[in-house]
């Protein structure tokens, strides 16, 4: 192999979604390490580019709140950081419910996250109506996270990718990695077209495609590909600031929507659709769309006369315990993972990037991520770290 086909850097990132591009940017900006990022197709195209765009902290597993807070701090300065407008608006995230039992859960969550630095406000049905005036009588309560909001996922991944590139990261699109081997103290990634990239540190962040690489390193993870069921309406006069979701234990009732500055209502939620990682396709099931329309009418009756103009999906990775995989490998030194964000990775992505960059560059992070360790899936007999 000639020198031109063997490229070496401090860190190799496999996967050009939001987790990969944010990590690449912060590795350059904060730590000055050389970075190569390999993306099989185009930056930010699947889960990163097709999700709802929630910048939401409330409603998360408590273990994610510190990470979400850290991410939220980046969102505050994201336009300055990137020199581009990601359409982030901090107009709040509102979570409402239909039952007294669920109201009690919202109230408990308000108490739980308060010590973690997240201040929420409870709203009665009457207070919701006074403030927003759009909800049906079925809505009984809600909690507002006033500093959360939403942003445009179509723009975010590519913008982080460009910023990382401007900061000196080597970003290679259309570079599908066939396999990764460990040679001495280095990882060598072989692309399907025969290129090789070497680095002593590796981050696997290939979303729903990650389990194969983890398996190759002896760390099997139960990971499923699923597709969010998204839709958008024609534009309406701009009136709804916050991102709004229903909190419910019934999956078919699940729903969230936001209004973008142009006026369109973007929505999603409920059952997931089929996604085929190998074929790179995910579909919206027609019955899911029709159910979402029913739930939207139930939630905000005035939506009945609005037109749906488009639906879409993408490929997201879901772990079987609904907890992400994030942090160092439990077996292989120098190997790191960030995947399996279960359809709620967008909001925390800049936090994941900061934390992973810190972890890779310094070996530690100030943000607790132990709960996300891949070691939780390790079979008992395999629990020994490899020392090579």
């Amino acid at each position, binding site marked *: 192999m000639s020198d031109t086909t063997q490229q070496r850097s401090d860190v190799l990132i496999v996967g050009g979604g939001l987790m990969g591009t944010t990590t690449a940017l912060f590795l350059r900006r904060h730590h000055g390490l050389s970075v190569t990022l390999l993306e099989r197709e185009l930056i930010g195209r699947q889960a990163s580019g097709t999700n709802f765009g929630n910048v939401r902290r409330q409603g998360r597993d408590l273990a994610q709140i510190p990470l979400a807070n850290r991410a939220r701090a980046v969102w505050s300065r994201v336009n300055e950081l990137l020199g581009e407008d990601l359409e982030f608006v901090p107009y709040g995230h509102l979570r409402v419910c239909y039952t007294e039992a669920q109201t009690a859960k919202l109230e408990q969550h308000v108490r739980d996250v308060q010590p973690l630095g997240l201040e929420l406000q409870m709203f009665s049905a009457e207070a919701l109506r006074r403030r927003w005036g759009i909800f049906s009588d079925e809505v009984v309560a809600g909690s507002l996270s006033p500093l959360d909001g939403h942003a445009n996922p*179509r723009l975010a991944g590519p913008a982080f990718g460009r910023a990382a590139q401007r900061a000196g990261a080597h970003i290679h699109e259309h570079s599908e990695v066939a396999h990764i081997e460990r040679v001495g103290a280095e990882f060598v990634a072989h692309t399907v077209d025969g290129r090789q990239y070497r680095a002593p540190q590796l981050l696997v962040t290939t979303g729903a495609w990650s389990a194969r690489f983890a398996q190759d390193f002896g760390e099997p993870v139960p990971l499923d590909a699923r597709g969010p069921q998204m839709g958008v309406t024609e534009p309406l006069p701009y009136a709804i600031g916050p991102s709004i979701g229903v909190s419910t234990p019934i999956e078919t009732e699940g729903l969230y929507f936001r209004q973008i500055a*142009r006026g369109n209502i973007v929505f999603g939620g409920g059952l997931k659709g089929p996604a085929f990682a190998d074929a790179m396709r995910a579909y*919206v099931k*027609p019955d899911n769309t*029709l159910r979402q*329309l*029913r739930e939207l009418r139930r939630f905000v009756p005035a939506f009945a006369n609005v037109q749906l*103009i*488009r639906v879409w999906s993408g490929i997201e990775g879901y772990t079987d315990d609904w907890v992400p995989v994030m942090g160092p490998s439990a077996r292989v030194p120098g190997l790191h993972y960030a995947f399996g964000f279960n359809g709620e990775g967008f909001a925390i992505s800049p936090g994941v990037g900061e934390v992973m960059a810190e972890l890779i560059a310094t070996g530690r992070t100030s943000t607790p991520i132990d709960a996300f360790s891949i070691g939780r899936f390790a079979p008992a007999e395999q629990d020994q770290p490899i020392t090579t």
Partner: protein
Amino acid sequence: MTPPRVVVVGAGPAGVRAAQALVEAGVRPIVIDEGRRDGGQIYRRQPDGFTRTHAMLYGSEAAKAQALHEGFDTLREHVDYRPETLAWNVTPGQLHTVHASSGETATLDFDALIVCAGATDRLMPVPGWNQAGCYSLGAAQIALKAQACAIGSRVVFMGSGPLLYLVAAQYVKAGAKVEAVLDTAPALPTFAALRGLLNRPRLLLRGLALKAMLRLTGVKLLNAITPLRIEGTPEGGVAEVAIHDARGAERAFACDAVGLGWHLRAETQLADLARCEFAFEPLSRQWLPRIDADGRSSTPGVYLAGDGARLLGADGAEAAGRLAALAALHDLNHARGRTLFAAERMSLQRTLATMNGFREGLAQAFPWPHAHAAALPNDAVVCRCEAVTAGELRRSVLEFGSQEVNRAKAFSRVGMGRCQGRYCGHAAAEIVAAAASIPVEQIGRLRSQAPVKPLLMSTQEHE
């Protein structure tokens, strides 16, 4: 043996003839029609209470229109006809429909789906085309056909293709003032184009006669023009069309309405949602679903016929509809269908080959002026639904690195609005390709998403 479940989408020339072939073979198809009545766009039937004759409505095509309408009338008891119904989505083996006024939905299981979705006008953005008073040629014609209305009292028609002259002539006949007919194609077709057009000499002569009639009635006919802009005001709408004539001199034509159209583009969303493969058709520079000589798509059980698959016109659509239906029955091992298919296949294929020769002639005689699209000024609105300009599209290439048309869509919103790129997509592709210095066939094809047309939120689920 249970009878095969066959669904036909569309009740224009292709859909009606497909349904007729199925009924002849003893199959009762479901026919989904977006229209209130059968006939499609070309043979659109007038609303109840209107009393114009076929001759008044369809001119030289009256006999064909009448035959198609009467043919469908005799089928009515033998088909499950569902007018005012949109096929909004298709998934493997299932078509999803919604009724326009009730909002009621249905999921139809099919063994064979015959999509006869037709075509719409192919539009080229012109600076100022997003003003009141700009219509497509097809819309101008439908206003006349369906409602006996003209789009204005002093009309300029601009574009290219046979419809340009046909609509202008229909307006003259109806008593409207046609200020000018402005054609981007050269006055004389090339030899290759002529050779194609001679496949249907009578149609060629009819076209020449239309031009002669327009000239005789004092309509200004200009060829090889370059559209510059459509002037107007927000209050009054369009007022004037400015062009460069064949010699490059700027000229302006005062008007109160403009009809625009550059021949036709196939309605391919259902084929796309049915996961059919597409191929770039270089003569017309548009992506069309792959079909074999009988109308089979790459998706088993999905057949495509009429202008939604190949722009052969109404006569070709009738033959293609019949052939696709018989091919579907053949593939389903339907005895009577196999007999009819074997008997008629060669003759129908020959008809289609002649029509296709003529199509190629038309595509060359009235070429899609892709260089105009690529040269649109930066402030020209390309996507009217989302108000995306040519400059924003170029920026998605030059600043954000789009090398692919769906990437340009993601960055600029082009084609994300109500029409999903059906009207701006071709021009947008030319702009992106030119900005990226990549041949247009290599920048990809805007992917379709459901719903095929906007779906009201009040749309009801079904059991």
